[in-house]
């Protein structure tokens, strides 16, 4: 158990947050595309909370594993627009079910979580540097 573990953990956390950001950005970018090909994306990862364990095994601290971006299964949003070239026989156009509001809220969450990871990393760095000062003349 040393500070390198923290760097590793925080790096894993940041890369998962970046993946969530990519999914959210793709959702916003494709919000106005027509058709049913694009469905809103989500980044998911697995990370089981372990039962109580010994400090010596703490290198096994959980981190986001197998992070992937998957398409959701929400039905497309149908908008009545008979003049649209992509309108179906009844005059409806299919858009992906992207809610700009919830995507923006998610963006804020992602930003905060990313910042917290950076904070943890910076704090580990300053603690490690402080530890190197033991015994130095002051």
């Amino acid at each position: 158990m040393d500070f390198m573990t923290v760097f590793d953990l925080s790096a894993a956390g940041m890369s998962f947050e970046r993946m969530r950001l990519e999914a959210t950005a793709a959702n916003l970018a494709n919000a106005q595309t027509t058709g049913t090909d694009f469905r809103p994306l989500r980044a998911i990862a697995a990370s089981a909370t372990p039962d109580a364990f010994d400090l010596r095994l703490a290198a096994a601290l959980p981190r986001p594993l197998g992070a992937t971006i998957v398409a959701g299964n929400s039905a497309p949003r149908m908008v009545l627009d008979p003049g649209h070239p992509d309108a179906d026989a009844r005059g409806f156009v299919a858009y992906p079910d992207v809610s700009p509001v919830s995507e923006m809220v998610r963006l804020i969450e992602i930003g905060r979580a990313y910042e917290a990871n950076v904070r943890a990393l910076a704090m580990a760095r300053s603690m490690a540097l402080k530890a190197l000062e033991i015994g130095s003349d002051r």
Partner: protein
Amino acid sequence: MGEISGILNSATGELVLRALDAGVARHAVHAANVANASVEGYRPLRLEFEDQLAAARSALLSRDEAVAKRAVAQLEPRVAPDAGAKEVQLDREVALMTENSVRYQALLGALGKNGALLRLAIREGRN
């Protein structure tokens, strides 16, 4: 002789080293909680160390060095899920992390003071 080896090799010195290790481990636990904050179903972990310290208090404060050292050797910080929390609260994690960092640096300061005492002795009292 007894005094010098007391500074170098006392139960208190050992305890400080254990506490420093626990500080690093606790930081890693908070970092893991932050890293997994966005993962569905993750429950925050906590490091349990202070309750063991409290339980061993009388042995640790014993005037008998051997008893105190045995008590120090039995301290074993454990990591367990937080019983009262269902999901990670970032603000709480960062607050606990900051507190832990301050405590860690205070301990390092104490260790440095211990070393300064020894240095003072080696330099025959001249600063």
